[in-house]
């Protein structure tokens, strides 16, 4: 078998190298090959991505945390103290063999860090197709785990801004707070003004949200191509925002940027060129290619799609309101901030702007349906992570806690980490719940006189109790759907930020 290992220790001059020697001797004695990355004081030469990709298992024999750990994400892993490699190299190699065999026998179990199945269990071979799917999920999960802090920070700041705004301005506070120009806060921030604080929280949260898609795309590309992937991924993610492609566009940008960088970094170039490859050639070409694809190839069809959907929705205005609510719900949950979601949201807010103040108008019902349908995806995911923890990775579970507040504040983005990590199961689940909620809101005849704000604009909602009921029902449907779908398929991918459990034999 082929293994890779990382060794490290606090001082970085002795144990690191002794452990490397111990592992190499043990691997050689057992007829395996191993390449060890010694992360000591003498710096470290990174194992090549190809070497890591080819390894059957990874051994961490470390006294201080592994640097750039994400490079090893998803590999069968044996983790031990650095001293273990010095005193018992053969034991660690044996554990690595067991971890690799467990992976081959049952990919999901080994990756999820659950105990290795007993020998003689299922011995399905990992076919090429399955392993590609697994790698895709690992790439997505890497992007998601780096994105989550931006979601949590931004979402909670915005929610706090709404809360404080409601106290500072009264019942329309959540609307007014978004209208305070950033320039006014910069030039005249008054520490004694609750309104200024609310606007500050809101604006900071919005700034954090600006990074969601670039970071998601950047770290998907990073997982694919290592460091060269970051620049094209992040730029592509930013462009996904510019062309209104949302997080699904960001995922596309991550793949485009990652593979562009990977492809270029594998070019065979003359020795004299090698020095300028990482600093000039790879970033220049990979960013350019990604930009070209995002703007030219994706930009125009997306705009056409958005325009088409918008005129279609306008044509539906006279139709059955409940059906309209269902459709708007499906659209809100489909891409959570992407083009389809934006069309539905803009449709609602445009109607709101031209609506008469008379309550009960169709425009106000549409706005109510759209907001409620945008609240259930994060709420549904939050509930799912609470009742079925094992179906989610550690990073997702933590994001689930923030998702309660985000969902309640109509910050649909709270569900993006879940959707980006596992789009095929999470997006349909979210759409089911949102469709139900959108239809129910229309059935109940709820109205809303604010374009956003979630529970913080409750005074502006008509029949709030029924409104909450519609949201609860949609949330339960989304939870039930996602739990059912997740339980049926492969388990969560262990990501770079998760605590790694030791694979023991």
């Amino acid at each position, binding site marked *: 078998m082929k293994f890779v290992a990382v060794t490290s220790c606090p001082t970085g001059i002795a144990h690191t190298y*002794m452990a490397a020697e111990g592992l190499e001797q043990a691997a050689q004695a057992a007829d395996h090959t191993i390449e060890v990355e010694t992360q000591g004081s003498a710096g470290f030469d990174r194992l090549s991505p190809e070497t890591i990709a080819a390894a059957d298992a990874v051994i961490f024999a470390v006294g201080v945390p592994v640097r750039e750990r994400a490079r090893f994400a998803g590999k069968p892993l044996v983790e031990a103290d650095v001293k273990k490699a010095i005193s018992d190299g053969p034991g660690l190699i044996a554990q690595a063999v067991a971890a690799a065999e467990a992976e081959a026998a049952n990919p999901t179990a080994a990756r999820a860090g659950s105990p290795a199945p007993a020998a003689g269990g299922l011995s399905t071979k990992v076919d090429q197709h399955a392993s590609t799917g697994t790698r895709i999920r690992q790439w997505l999960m890497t992007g998601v785990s780096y994105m989550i802090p931006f979601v949590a920070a931004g979402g909670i700041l915005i929610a706090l801004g709404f809360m404080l705004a409601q106290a500072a301005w009264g019942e329309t506070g959540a609307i007014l707070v978004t209208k305070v120009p950033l320039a006014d806060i910069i030039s005249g921030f008054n520490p004694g003004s609750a309104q200024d604080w609310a606007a500050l929280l809101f604006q900071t949260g919005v700034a954090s949200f600006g990074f969601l898609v670039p970071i998601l795309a950047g770290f998907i590309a990073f997982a694919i191509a290592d460091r060269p992937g970051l620049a094209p991924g992040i730029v592509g993610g930013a462009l996904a925002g510019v062309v209104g492609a949302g997080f699904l566009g960001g995922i596309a940008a991550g793949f485009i940027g990652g593979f562009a960088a990977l492809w270029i970094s594998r070019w065979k170039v003359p020795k004299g060129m090698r020095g300028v490859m990482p600093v000039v050639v790879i970033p220049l070409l990979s960013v350019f290619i990604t930009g070209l694809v995002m703007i030219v190839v994706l930009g125009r069809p997306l705009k056409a799609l958005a325009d088409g959907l918008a005129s279609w929705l306008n044509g539906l205005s006279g139709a059955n309101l409940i059906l309209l609510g269902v459709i708007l719900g499906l659209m809100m949950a489909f891409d959570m901030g992407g083009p389809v979601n934006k069309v539905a949201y803009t449709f609602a807010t445009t109607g709101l702007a031209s609506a008469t103040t008379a309550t009960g108008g169709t425009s106000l019902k549409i706005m109510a349906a759209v907001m409620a349908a945008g609240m259930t995806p994060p709420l549904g995911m939050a509930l799912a992570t609470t009742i079925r923890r094992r179906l989610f990775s550690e990073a997702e579970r933590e994001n689930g806690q923030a998702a309660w507040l985000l969902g309640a504040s109509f910050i649909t983005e709270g569900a993006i980490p879940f959707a980006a990590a596992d789009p095929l199961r999470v997006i349909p689940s979210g759409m089911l719940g949102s469709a139900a909620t959108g239809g129910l809101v229309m059935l109940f005849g709820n109205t809303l006189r604010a374009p956003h704000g979630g529970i913080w604009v409750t005074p502006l909602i008509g029949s709030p109790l029924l409104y909450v009921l519609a949201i609860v029902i949609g949330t339960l449907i989304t939870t039930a759907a996602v739990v059912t779908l997740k339980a049926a398929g492969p388990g969560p991918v262990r990501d770079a930020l998760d605590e790694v459990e030791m694979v023991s034999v």
Partner: protein
Amino acid sequence: MSLITEKLVVLNLDSADRHVATRVLAEALVGEGRVTDLDGFLADVRKREEQMPTGLPGGIGIPHARSAHVTEPSLVFGRATGGIDWGAEDGPATLIFLIAAPEGGDEAHLKILAALARRLMRTEFRQSLMNAPDATTVVDVVTREVVNP
């Protein structure tokens, strides 16, 4: 540059505990002008030792530190026939390697120390140090195996 000299070999290291033994070995470094402040250096070694004792299976102890009081990368070799408890589970240490690295030492120096650490894992290397009749032999073995392999 020499990693070790004959004055940095202590063949009859008989001390009550590892801290006293470390001090004896460190004094050799002061004598050779490789450590400028004995107590400062010992404090650095002790700090590392307190994170986790550096005794290893097979009867070896490797007290070590990167320290601002060290002028060049050095090895002091001590042989304690009676054994000194160095915190290893399988018993006291008989071969003690005090490794001193300057703070921010350059890469060439650190690579030599890395090579030394790797040799410590080789049974033959340990055995020839165990059997060395005198300091000159120890210096020869280390120089041959580590400095000019």
